[in-house]
């Protein structure tokens, strides 16, 4: 039991996929322009990650070593396509704003990484907890980055069309650079540096 909780905590804090393992940086950089996108991306990644970990873990004893990577990729690609089609059908506006990034989950290294490093070697319950932990860890990281970028880049915070607050002065003259790709690099590197300075990330 403690082992399972350990698996869950592992992904959120100790080896947070974005902030510590530095996996899945491309989607993190690309879609972190607004909190809405961060939530949508997190939901999609969580679904794909949990399902792929379950399936990979179930077939781990039958998968021939030599073809394991192609097998994982086929499984992940199938799941992503299902998510993509479902989103297009039932959430067209979210699908439009996430656009190209949904198909790109296929090559998100968090998912393939967890399939290869964890799910293919562990029992199903552990694999599920690992996926949930990693998914939440990804969600927390991308939400923090989106929050900072949206506040600095637009001067106000709106979630799903509801304006929560805006920063006086900043909303009239926003620092647009933070919405641009360069801002993503700035925010993520400053965030990593701060966490390291505070000792949250230990070097080595």
């Amino acid at each position, binding site marked *: 039991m403690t082992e399972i909780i350990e698996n869950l905590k592992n992904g959120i804090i100790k080896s947070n996929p974005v902030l510590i393992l530095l996996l899945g940086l491309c989607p993190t950089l690309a879609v972190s322009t607004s909190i809405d996108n961060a939530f949508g991306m997190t939901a999609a990644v969580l679904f794909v990650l949990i399902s792929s970990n379950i399936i990979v873990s179930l077939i781990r004893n039958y998968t021939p070593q030599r073809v394991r990577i192609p097998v994982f990729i086929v499984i992940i*690609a199938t799941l992503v396509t299902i998510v993509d089609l*479902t989103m297009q059908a039932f959430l067209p506006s979210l699908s439009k704003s996430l656009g190209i990034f949904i198909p790109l989950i296929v090559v998100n290294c968090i998912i393939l990484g967890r399939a290869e490093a964890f799910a293919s070697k562990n029992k199903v319950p552990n694999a599920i907890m690992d996926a949930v932990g990693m998914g939440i860890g990804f969600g927390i990281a991308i939400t923090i980055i989106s929050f900072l970028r949206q506040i600095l880049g637009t001067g106000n915070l709106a979630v799903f069309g509801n304006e929560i607050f805006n920063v006086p002065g900043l909303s009239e003259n926003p620092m647009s650079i933070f919405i641009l790709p360069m801002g993503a690099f700035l925010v993520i590197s400053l965030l990593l540096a701060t966490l390291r300075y505070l000792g949250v990330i230990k070097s080595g």
Partner: protein
Amino acid sequence: MTKSNLKKEIVPVLFLTFVVCISVIFLYGTNSVTEEYIENAKNDAVKSMLKEQFTEMDDYSYDEKLDFYTVFLNGEIVGYAFIAVANGYGGPIELIVALESNFLQEDEIIIHGISVVSHSETPGLGEKIVEASFSDQFTGINFNDVALTRDGGKIDAISGATVSSSAVVDSVFNSVKEKADIIRENFDLNNGEES
């Protein structure tokens, strides 16, 4: 090749084939369930896009071959619209260009309005092409006046976003020029058949 070697070679191939087959079944299933919804969602998106230009519309038809929309209210044609793609600063800008229905009878082509469907322009600068203060300038003007003010037209460029502004202007002018003839020819054909 010994028997065990053959097995070692063939099992992975069969396994991968099996996984792909299962995956195909799932994808086929998902596609057949979602196909109809995706079609409806696209249809709704087009309708709301046309509604932005023609608030009083109830139906539209799409000419696949000539790639334009005819917009109706109670069975009467209220206007025409088509999608134009401009070469923006940050990538393609998709625009919907709406034309008044009466341009068929008269020589001058009056633009009903334009709106941006999708773009990837710089936030805070080129992004302003979506704002009414820019796109409303096109409403009701003759298509010959579609040019930036500095080139003798009637459209004021957005300060700091000349590339985005002139991309939209050029694309509207060129596409109207090209599409208007197509719509005219098409209309004559229909008219001939009807009368």
